């Protein structure tokens, strides 16, 4: 039996898949230098931190492995490779896939998300990749983004292929495009920077300057020209809609699952819900069908838990919104439940507030840019804060754990203002918790637990106080 058999069976691969994909699987693990001991470790880790009683969870992990195989082997399999930065411009990868004559002609994705998720979350072997990134221009001690260190390190180690084009998200942070510039210098691949300016003044959102949309729109339209010139693929309104349809099943499944997550008691743990977070953000391949199927199965399983009143924390536990989960460390994701807090939703899963009426912009780039402005994060710090505030109406939480990546400048710019504003406008206690979703060397679980315990205790007391006052008023 192959040394990876037990692992892949655990991740819901069937026997025929394991046999038919043997060459791909072995080549991937060989490139990643993963041997029998790593497989054993991954099995133990997955069993320890993920709820493998749920078939949906096992299948979701399996989909991540499939995305990993597709990423590592895409050059050998003769595909054109396009990487995009994190966070991506929504649907851009899918639009490229939809525009291609055959979706198998292209690999499109966010490699750092896939590598962090798999090598970090399942194999606990991300540190060598991070170290390679540190040695290749993103040194330690300078608050360099660890997600970018993963990307740079993976390129340096030769575990992910050099792309034919990289789409840099120049509108959100400065480090991402700069890291691409560094890699462009080293490896000579072309980079298309989608630029914009987060210059809207405090108080403007949801209004915006039309010229800001026009500039971002022009940048997107230029990207579409580049894609046409380089690869002969044309992105227009129709193709964009087709791209959205590719993700239709996935988003429908996510919506169904997230509705169940709002139950009391919360039926799914943070480590498990993390598995779906980066499906639509990091990948455009197996995730769209098999990932959707995994989430559909998971939603059915979770629905049954809700009916039976089964939860990962007890009913009536304080409920908190978190910003994001670690994408490499399931142990830290489990901490929140360990201290008795329920997480019914995350920032990424919050429903968007109602959009104002669109302005009749003419180009596809402009229309997409306008949508991005409504989203808040690409508008301004104020836009992001107000977007969170507006979405909180639907969250029904008792507090917020604003766990932000300490080396992510857009978060660092805004976290204290966000806390002040949200506490003032909503009255929800907010804990600022600096973390690193990719690099466990940058935090101590012990100190994080202490801070979470204190916050949890405060929320529990607050809930108790409300309960007592409710009884008195009866």
């Amino acid at each position, binding site marked *: 039996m192959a040394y990876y058999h037990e692992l892949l069976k655990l991740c819901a691969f069937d026997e025929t898949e394991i046999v038919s994909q043997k060459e791909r699987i072995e080549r991937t693990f060989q490139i990643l230098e993963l041997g029998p001991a790593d497989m054993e470790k991954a099995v133990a880790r997955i069993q320890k931190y993920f709820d493998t009683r749920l078939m949906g969870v096992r299948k979701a992990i399996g989909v991540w492995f499939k995305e990993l195989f597709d990423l590592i082997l895409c050059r050998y399999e003769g595909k054109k490779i396009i990487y995009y930065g994190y966070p991506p411009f929504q649907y851009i990868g899918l639009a490229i896939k939809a525009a291609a004559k055959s979706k198998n002609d292209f690999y499109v994705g966010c490699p750092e998300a896939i590598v962090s998720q798999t090598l970090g979350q399942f194999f606990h072997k991300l540190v060598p990749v991070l170290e390679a990134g540190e040695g290749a221009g993103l040194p330690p001690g300078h608050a360099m983004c660890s997600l970018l260190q993963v990307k740079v390190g993976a390129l340096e180690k030769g575990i992910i292929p050099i792309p034919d084009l990289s789409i840099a998200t120049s509108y959100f942070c400065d480090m991402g*495009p700069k890291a691409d510039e560094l890699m462009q210098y080293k490896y000579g691949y072309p980079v298309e920077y989608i630029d914009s300016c987060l*210059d809207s003044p405090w108080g403007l959102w949801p209004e915006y300057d039309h010229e800001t949309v026009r*500039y971002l729109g022009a940048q997107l339209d230029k990207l579409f020209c580049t894609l046409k010139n380089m690869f002969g693929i044309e992105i227009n309104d129709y193709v964009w809609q087709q791209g959205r349809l590719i993700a239709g099943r996935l988003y429908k499944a996510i919506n169904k699952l997230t509705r169940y997550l709002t139950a009391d008691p919360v039926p799914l743990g943070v480590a498990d819900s993390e598995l779906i977070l980066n499906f639509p953000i990091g990948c455009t391949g197996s995730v769209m069908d098999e990932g959707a199927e995994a989430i559909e199965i998971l939603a059915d399983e979770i629905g049954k838990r809700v009916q039976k009143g089964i939860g990962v924390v007890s009913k009536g536990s304080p409920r908190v919104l978190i910003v994001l989960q670690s994408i490499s460390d399931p142990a830290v994701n489990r901490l929140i439940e360990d201290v008795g807090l329920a997480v019914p939703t995350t920032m990424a899963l919050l429903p968007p507030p109602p959009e104002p009426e669109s302005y009749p912009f003419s180009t596809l780039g402009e229309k997409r840019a306008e949508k991005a402005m409504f989203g808040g994060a690409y508008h301004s710090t104020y836009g992001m804060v107000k977007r969170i505030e507006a979405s909180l109406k639907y969250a029904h939480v008792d507090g917020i754990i604003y766990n932000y990546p300490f080396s992510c400048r857009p978060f660092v710019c805004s976290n204290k*203002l966000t806390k002040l504003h949200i506490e003032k406008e909503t009255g929800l206690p907010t804990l600022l918790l600096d973390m690193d979703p990719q690099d466990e060397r940058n935090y101590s679980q012990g100190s994080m637990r202490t801070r979470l315990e204190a916050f949890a205790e405060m929320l529990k007391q607050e809930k108790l106080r409300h309960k007592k006052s409710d009884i008195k008023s009866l």
Partner: protein
Amino acid sequence: MEAINKIKAHIMSGLNDLIQAKERGIKIIGYLPGGYFPEELAIAAGAMPVCMIRGGNHACVEASIAYIDRWLDTFYRAQIGSGVSGTDPYYNIIDVLIAPITDSNNRALSDTLDYHTDIDIFPFGVPHKKEESGYLYYLHGLKRVKIKLEQLTGVEITKERLKEAILLCNKERELLKKISLMRKTETVPITSKDFVMINHAAMIIDKKVLIRYLESLIQELQEADSVNSKGPRLLLTGSTLAMGDGKILDLIEEAGGKVVIEEFAEGIKFYWQNVKTTGDPIEALAQAYFTDRIVPAWFRPAGERLNHLVQLAKDFSVDGVIWYQLMYRESYKIESYYFPEILEKETGLSMLTLESDYDPSEIGQMRTRIETYLESIRG
């Protein structure tokens, strides 16, 4: 030198000048450094521009901790500390703060001041790419600034007024360039400390006064002896060289080095080219301040700047390059990784990278590294 002393004295009394101007009803236009706010617009509006370029004080960095995380550029954290705490009199006197938004660091400053203070903040975006669409967006930003200044001052910024202001600022740029170029030869008549000081003066004191001083200075320099002629010639570059952050220049001088040319995004003016005086003046400003100037490290890509540094190293016949940047300025940090290879390939020169958090405890280590570097250059 007499002119140098006069400029220094004028800097010392700069705040009083602003207070007196304000008492006369003149509006004071604060702006963030980086070279993307054309002072011409403020001058044409009959106002006084003043750059928020003071830095170097670790107490201000410490004061910022209550308002912002430490993982941002030191200079901007210092600005947040002094601006929000109200301890910097310049922040208390300005009528508006024009904030060209260039990267996350100054965006954090703009947002934090807007939230915590009553300062009227006016942000406008600087695109990160030199393309037609970027130029148009920057031009749009300048037009917004123009309207803002007209509303604030009640003065219409006519083409004639703007052209007059451009001529004034062109004169200042020409004089700075002339002084800078005097350092190309073996005889270097002015120290870098003095040249940096007059750059800072150009950001805070009245242009007409400064131009008079600079003209006198050029005459004095033409007759002056060389300063510290034996030391290695150096190019000093980096992100920000703030007024008050003089330790790097002191340490180089004490170690026997001689900075003959400086290149900084913030703290050194871009004096190499003038603004055109033909055509539409606001378009001429956009052309000069956005398209024609050498880009800072936060452009994508920013190779133009690295080529410029190589050219400066050649033109000024330097023996070495010192890269001085502030902590957590990520664009500069990444460039500092791969520029030495380009520099070595193009010029055969080595580079020393130094970083500062405005912490006085850095000085000893910095001194050792500079001394060692200069020793290695001397061979």
